[in-house]
């Protein structure tokens, strides 16, 4: 075998490095996820080198499973993943089609197959992202049409591996049950990426980024209040990580708007500054003071 292949040059020219750097810059935390994506990118570059030097095997199977709690960035990473796979030539178009059970499963006999196939055709050349994939399988109803969708999905995942990449996403425990009850599907998903929950420090960085994109600023008091808010909110049920941060900011903006209207006259600094009281008015603090025990637990 003669000739050589410059892997670093390939990485540079494909523009994947920019996407990876962007990923590092834009996404806070998620270290295991970033490591895994770098590994996959490396695999694809090496695979390209193998093809260039004529020692190529078959294309690797890149169907993935993203597990993690809500708001940990699964959809965002899937979108970046589509770009990376496209730049490295694993998929031809690099678009992302995000679907849930409703888009795949029909309502009556004979409705499911065309529906699923339609979605698969739309996703070809790109990435199919199935959110909350475990809803496809409903063991309590043996006549559920979800099974039919799973079978079609499995067939296409196997036979048209070069045409699309399927990413399943959902909570970890329920995805585990889902793959256990559909072993054929589980064995076709080679990469399982787990998204960890964010720490309070990471959530604060996320909040800072969101505030900056909204064109707002946090006063020193607001920053402390937001930190307290996140510490309390994190312990409460239905906490959705980055999504909860976004919601908190949206509600703070509402309160800020009301506060400013009550004042009457404002200057530009007041318009872009969120104050501590915008956060302290939240229900989360009220719940915490009425239940002092939970506050102790978070301190």
């Amino acid at each position, binding site marked *: 075998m003669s000739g050589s292949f410059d892997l670093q040059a390939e990485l540079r020219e494909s523009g994947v490095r920019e996407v990876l750097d962007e990923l590092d810059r834009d996404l806070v935390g998620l270290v295991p996820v970033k490591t895994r994506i770098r590994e996959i990118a490396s695999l694809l570059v090496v695979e390209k080198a193998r093809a260039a030097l004529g020692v190529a095997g078959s294309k690797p199977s890149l169907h993935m499973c993203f597990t993690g709690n809500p708001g940990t960035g699964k959809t965002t990473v899937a979108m970046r993943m589509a770009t990376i796979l496209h730049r490295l030539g694993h998929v031809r*178009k690099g*678009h992302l089609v995000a679907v849930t059970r409703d888009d795949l499963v029909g309502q009556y006999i004979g409705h499911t197959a065309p529906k699923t196939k339609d979605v698969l*055709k*739309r996703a*070809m*050349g*790109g990435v199919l992202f199935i959110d909350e994939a475990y809803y496809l399988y409903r063991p309590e109803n043996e006549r559920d049409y979800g099974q039919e969708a799973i079978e079609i999905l499995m067939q296409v995942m196997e036979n*048209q591996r070069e045409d699309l990449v399927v990413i399943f996403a959902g909570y970890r425990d329920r995805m585990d049950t889902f793959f256990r009850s559909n072993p054929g599907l589980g064995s076709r998903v080679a990469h399982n990426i787990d998204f960890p929950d964010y720490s309070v420090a990471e959530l604060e960085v996320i909040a800072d980024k969101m505030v900056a994109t909204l064109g707002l600023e946090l006063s020193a008091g607001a920053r402390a209040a937001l930190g307290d808010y996140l510490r309390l909110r994190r312990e409460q049920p239905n906490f959705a990580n980055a999504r909860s941060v976004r919601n908190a900011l949206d509600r703070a903006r509402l309160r800020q708007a009301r506060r400013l209207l009550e004042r009457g006259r404002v200057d530009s600094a007041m318009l872009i500054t969120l104050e501590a009281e915008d956060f302290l008015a939240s229900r989360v603090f009220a719940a915490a003071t009425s239940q002092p025990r939970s506050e102790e637990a978070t301190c």
Partner: protein
Amino acid sequence: MRITQGTFSFLPDLTDEQIARQVEHALAQGWAVSVEYTDDPHPRNVYWEMWGMPMFDLADPAGVLAEIRACRAAHPECYVKLNAFDSTRGFETMRLSFMVHRPRQEARFRLRREEGAGRLVHYTLERA
């Protein structure tokens, strides 16, 4: 007799790769692609059977190619064609249509002469 209908019909049959390139072009124009088949390729037969619904919002020809292959496998003795429909206002019509499969034994047609009033001759095609 080689049936010639639609675009490219005087060229040798397109390979799957060439078909994919044509579909790629149609999708880039925003046209909706559909597959149809018939056992009656008479030039006046405009009603071909639909092979599934027209395909909207596709990004890649792989899905269309899969449908074409499935249709060929199900109807090897039929003619299969591919249509690309442009929904832009002002066009609202087929912009591209060509055959992607023909049976091994092609249909045969003969020319029939019919004498009408005043020794006027009508010509028509009929299946041989």
